[in-house]
């Protein structure tokens, strides 16, 4: 074992930051599990689970996108270590969201699902977001990062497309009250601007 003194200076929060965020990211799922024990999921449990998992997929996606601007803003470099885990949680909730739809909404009626994807713009957008997330999740390992080299970063710029498709998916599904989709859209716009503005300045 290496003596502690030779290690680079460690931030005091380093040890517990990741486990705490990990547990925090699981609480929405735990909440659903607890609510499902009683009548907590309301009159339309499938709708509740669909909306909840979809919302949390979007939340973790936006939180993932907030990591880099937050790190720049605060100079707290440890945040970078959370990015992969947060991104994978976004993927995890998106997978639950998709599974809820495929199973409890369509009962794996693939013809009906295919028709939905083609005919319903909000489902097209949602499915696009998920399919774009898939390669990001699959290449999230250290080994894949090394193998892809510079291309890894290029590939992972897809995350912006994922976020835009996800917000469209939400906005196009809402019947009338666009307040929440617009709120998420505004946060996304802010996060994109936080990247675009420094990039334009560098040019």
């Amino acid at each position, binding site marked *: 074992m290496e003596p502690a003194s030779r290690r680079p200076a460690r931030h005091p929060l380093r040890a517990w930051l990741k486990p705490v965020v990990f547990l925090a990211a699981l609480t929405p799922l735990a909440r659903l599990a607890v609510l499902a024990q009683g009548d907590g999921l309301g*009159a339309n449990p499938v709708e509740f689970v669909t909306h909840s998992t979809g919302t949390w997929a979007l939340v973790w996606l936006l939180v993932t996108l907030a990591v880099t601007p937050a790190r720049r803003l605060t100079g707290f470099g440890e945040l970078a270590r959370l990015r992969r885990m947060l991104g994978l949680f976004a993927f995890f909730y998106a997978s639950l969201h998709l599974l809820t739809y495929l199973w409890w909404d369509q009962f794996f009626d693939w013809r009906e699902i295919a028709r*939905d994807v083609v005919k319903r713009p909000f489902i097209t957008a949602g499915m696009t977001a998920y399919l774009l997330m898939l390669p990001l999740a699959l290449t999230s390992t250290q080994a894949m990062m090394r193998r892809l080299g510079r291309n890894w970063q290029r590939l992972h710029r897809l995350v912006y497309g994922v976020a835009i498709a996800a917000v469209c998916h939400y906005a196009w599904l809402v019947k009338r009250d666009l307040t929440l989709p617009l709120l998420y859209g505004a946060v996304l716009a802010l996060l994109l601007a936080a990247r675009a503005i420094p990039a334009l300045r560098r040019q």
Partner: protein
Amino acid sequence: MPRLRIPGIPPSEITPVELFRSRRAFLTTGAVGLAALAAPAQARLPARASPYSTPEPLTSLEDITHYNNFYEFGTGKEDPAQQAHSLVTRPWTVSVEGLVRKPAVWDVDTLLRFPLEERIYRLRCVEGWSMVIPWIGFPLASLLRQAEPLGSAKYVEFVSLHDPRQMPGQRRPILDWPYREGLRLDEALHPLTLLAVGLYGELLPNQNGAPIRLVVPWKYGFKSAKSIVRIRLVEQQPVTTWMRAAPDEYGFYSNVNPAVDHPRWSQARERRIGEFRKRPTLPFNGYGELVAHLYAGMDLRKFF
């Protein structure tokens, strides 16, 4: 010595026990009825059964009263149950006006004296879920006939209460307030078309459209305007709130139709609240035998 005669009651004078019991029940009912007039909020409404009722299992009162679309109290499904306590339903009047011989302003308690029926109807929401609800009410036709519509009257417009102090959802321009709905006169006069004042045997809870609402079971739920203050007979087809909000998505007729999708989602199936698997949606919500003739010769894709 005369035999001791016990003065008795001849058997013919004795009330049979069944009759005795039914008299007691009658007195109790009468007392409850009187109490009903004094304190309507706690009373069971006297209503007779209707042949129009479906025998399907009822959706629970809990779900009927906690899963509502009533944007006057917020756009979330649980909002109306939480917010609707601010609605004041007495005193309340309903004005019947427009192209009628006898316009009138009705006190809602007077309307409660129309012979009430329990009508167990399917309700199909345009969003793809459905319920089975035991409404209490009377046919809209009974009220309209009292007003004596003129020959020029072709449509009926329904206007809901507009009071942002009582209806906090109206403080936001989510819809063009007040909520307006409409029916063709023959639809309005159809015996299925109900003015509901109660559900599950009691007065309507605020979140379900108290004190009086429309129920048109073969159309999507939003056609059944809640908390109505004005019923107006007109010559031109009224522009309803949802037509104004999204004319390509919500038509004037809005008959339940599995063959005509909402532009953004399918209407082929529905989730009955309380059930897990989806069931196929029926044309006219299963009331086709009674109402399909109203639309004979009409292209229901065009008149959606």
